């Protein structure tokens, strides 16, 4: 039984220039304790999908789904207040900018204490001890001092640890990490990732890692979703998907990553995909990758369906099978 199942999830934004489809009939599922990745360029809809699942969309967005099951609850048959309650007790989310994700006017301690109070509670002393325990769990050792400090007094890495501690306070079954390391230094990045994976194991907490960095996914995830233009274009087991991408976009993404060490050849130019990510209010006809795709032909003006192929899902008329390589 999966922890989260979503089918045909669509998110539209109502704007002055019309309706913009930010996420188009996404289908995803995650099991308890699983680590999954979502990858895509900026504007591919990955963050919006995360916000939709966490119930944090802005009022300008409308969300539809044929199926939205979380921990055995059918969220499509609930009032928004009930849904929010189920979501906030099962899903926690951390964001790209830890420092602006914490309230600048309130101390770390206050914000942590507030979260604990809303999820379980206890006396003031119990809550304080719980907070200290959480801070220690995320690797903040001078928790007593940090408790009284404000977010601007902490580094980005420490603030991200505080965000993770706050997320843990909700005892979530799923933690969504929306580019949790993008704004941090490289050395801090790996510390935060290690922390997330350790918590995933210790708490059996499923992890949805949203990123645009393949190197993070290859080391950490069991399954990957690739997004482009608001659609999932390919999904499958991480190892298979990275070693042999079926979708031209996945291949292009992989080819644009610099390789060091054995594969490094001097003078080799990095591959880059022609053109730029389509703006969501001017999507191309048919396959959204069509105008940029080196393999495209006439058939690509028909929108491709997401279809199963050798244990994977691909949205392409001409998937790159072995013989094409």
């Amino acid at each position: 039984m999966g922890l989260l199942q979503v089918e045909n999830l669509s998110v539209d934004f109502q704007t002055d220039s019309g309706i913009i489809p930010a996420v188009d009939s996404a289908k995803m599922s995650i099991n308890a304790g699983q680590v999954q990745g979502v990858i895509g360029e900026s504007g591919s809809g990955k963050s919006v999908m995360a916000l939709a699942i966490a119930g944090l969309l802005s009022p300008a967005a409308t969300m539809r789904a044929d199926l939205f099951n979380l921990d055995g609850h059918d969220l499509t048959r609930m009032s928004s207040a009930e849904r929010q309650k189920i979501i906030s007790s099962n899903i926690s989310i951390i964001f790209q900018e830890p420092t602006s994700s914490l309230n600048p006017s309130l101390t770390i301690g206050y914000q942590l204490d507030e979260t604990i109070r809303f999820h379980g509670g206890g006396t003031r002393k119990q809550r304080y001890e719980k907070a200290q325990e959480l801070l220690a769990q995320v690797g903040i050792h001078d928790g007593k001092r940090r408790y009284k400090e404000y977010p601007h007094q902490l580094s980005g890495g420490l603030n991200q640890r505080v965000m993770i501690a706050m997320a843990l306070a909700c005892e979530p079954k799923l933690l969504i990490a929306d580019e949790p390391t993008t704004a941090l230094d490289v050395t801090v990045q790996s510390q935060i990732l290690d922390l997330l994976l350790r918590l995933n194991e210790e708490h059996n907490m499923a992890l949805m890692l949203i990123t645009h960095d393949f190197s993070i996914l290859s080391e950490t995830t069991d399954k990957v979703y690739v997004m482009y233009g608001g659609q999932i274009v390919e999904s499958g087991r991480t190892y298979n998907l990275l070693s042999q991408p079926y979708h031209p976009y996945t291949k292009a993404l992989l080819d644009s990553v610099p390789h060091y060490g054995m594969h490094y050849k001097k003078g080799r130019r990095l591959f880059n995909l022609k053109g730029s990510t389509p703006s969501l209010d001017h999507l191309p006809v048919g396959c959204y990758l069509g105008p940029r795709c080196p393999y495209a032909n006439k058939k690509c003006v028909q929108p491709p369906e997401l279809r199963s192929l050798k244990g994977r899902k691909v949205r392409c008329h001409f998937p790159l099978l072995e013989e094409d390589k």
Partner: protein
Amino acid sequence: MFATLLKQLSTLAISLLGLTILTFILSLQSDTPVHQFQSDSVILQYFEYLQFLLNGDWGTSSIHKRSVLKDFLQHFPATIELILLAMILAVTTGLALGIIASTRRGGWLDNTLMTSSLVGYSMPIFWWGMLLVLLFSLTLGWTPVAGRIDFAYDIEPYTRFMLIDTLLHHNQYGFSAFLNALHHLVLPAITLSTIPMAIIARMTRSSLLAVLKSEYVRTARSKGISKQRIIWVHALRNALQPILTISGVQISIIMSGVIITEYIFAWPGIGKWLLEAVSRRDFASIQGGVLALSIIVIAFNLALDFISIYLNPRLRRPS
């Protein structure tokens, strides 16, 4: 924190310096000099002028031969009473309306409030005051037309704050004198508070809307915190900064508004006193009055700066 305080105090010193130089230069142009200076050099005269000011000699009125400072202090309590009530009205109502509008963004209530605040903001105060008198005093008869209290009450001016003095006469009149004074105060205070209230309401709305879109409010929502708590605990505290700044600007608007308001309601305060001084070309009173009002505006803004430093941990506790 100490550095920020020092910076604020130095701006205070510079503002006061500029202000006194300005009033000093103006006083040199007068054909009936306010002060008699001993030295010939203008620079030394300026220091003499400062000395006069610090000694409490702000000149003598050319009309009724009374000390300007004494006159000012006598009229000032009535004005403070009016300004304080107006400011309290403006801030509380403005904040409340702004919060209501921002939580119902785009709804009919939001649109109604913002349109009426635009009207309130553009209303000439002399006309608005007269309209209020016409409706509430003359047509409906709910409020007195003018003055601070009915003639029937014989109030000894102990503090010159009518609300306090009437309470001190409690033995004689009970609470009726106090209520009567409050009754007289309501309409002028509403007149005076309208423009700042409209500005504060608009500022509160836009500032809150910006904060409600911020990432930390999104974090708070993800924790499952109630909407009320998000507004009162998470959003308002951060939205307060620009509201405080704009309230500081309001005090100078109120200071010029109070002159007109006092004239409309025959309120025996600074405004009425200054207007009379202007119409009689009582130069010493004008100069002293303007100087005192400016000092009050500067001091008020300084106090607000301190409050915003206190409210903002990034200024209070730099990393």
